[in-house]
């Protein structure tokens, strides 16, 4: 009990949760359970963000990703998950190919992750990160155009003002566009569609 590093403990907790539920998303067949496992996985990721000292990003992840995007996703699932679409089987061959490719990719990424010595963590004995080291105000003024303190960052003289504006306009376009796409128009009955496909 003496030497427990609580930061590492919480990292293990959230990291394991994220990994286990990410795998569960792949393995489960039911689309609704996939959405639920994805929720837990992304929630655990928010916890990891906190542990990395990015409290604001973690809260943003909870608010936008988990509370917004995933609710939207589950909403879509509930609208479309009827009868045969709840669980659609994948062929065994696809599983094998996907699994092999995935395992190779994972091996590659893991090897890359643990190769650089500098990334292996601070020297033991140095106190680990506390939560939320970055004050949210700093993110805000960077978004408002304060340049970073990095001299090599050419093209970032105006900070993140331009990306920020582009994202805002982009969101507006998406809002209008998806409202236009999803509006109710001519709706073919399920039976009609089936007949059209047979003919």
């Amino acid at each position, binding site marked *: 009990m003496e030497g427990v590093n609580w930061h590492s403990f919480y990292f293990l907790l959230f990291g394991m949760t994220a990994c286990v539920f990410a795998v569960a998303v792949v393995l489960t067949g039911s689309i609704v359970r996939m959405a639920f496992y994805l929720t837990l*996985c*992304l929630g655990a*990721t928010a916890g990891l963000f906190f542990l990395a000292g*990015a409290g604001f990003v973690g809260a943003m992840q909870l608010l936008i990703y988990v509370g917004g995007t995933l609710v939207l996703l589950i909403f879509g699932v509930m609208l479309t998950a009827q009868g045969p679409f709840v669980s659609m089987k994948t062929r065994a061959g696809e599983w094998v190919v996907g699994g092999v490719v995935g395992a190779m990719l994972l091996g590659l990424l893991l090897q890359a992750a643990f190769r650089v010595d500098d*990334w292996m963590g601070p020297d033991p004995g140095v106190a*680990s990160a506390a939560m939320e080291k970055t004050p949210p105000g700093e993110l805000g003024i960077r978004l408002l155009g304060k340049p970073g303190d990095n001299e090599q960052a050419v093209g970032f003289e105006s900070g993140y003002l331009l990306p920020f504006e582009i994202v805002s306009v982009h969101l507006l376009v*998406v809002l209008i566009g998806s409202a236009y796409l999803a509006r109710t128009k001519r709706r073919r009955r399920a039976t009609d569609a089936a007949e059209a496909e047979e003919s």
Partner: protein
Amino acid sequence: MNLLAEPVGASHFMAVGAVMFVCGVVCMATKRNGLGILMGIELVLNGANLNFVAFSSEFLRRNTEYALGVDGQLIALFVIVLAAAEAAVALAIALNYYNNHATIDVDRADELKG
């Protein structure tokens, strides 16, 4: 090494990110449900995001001066916002597809005519 006693580093965050990324890729490759593919994309984006955030922190590495700092967090923020936008559009497309074809199976989406 004993993970419970030693401080974790960016590598460990990257390992978690890698697992999520690979799960997302496999999910995109094997699922036939359009929304399942969308979930795979979310997993991939989050795996990448985790790396950005891990690199932004100066507490997770030996040489603190190489840390991305606030930039990494800002990129993660942009990814989150854009992912929300992407999910909204993709969902609208999926619902439209479901309305027109009465199925959500992407394998059946092989004709250009709506």
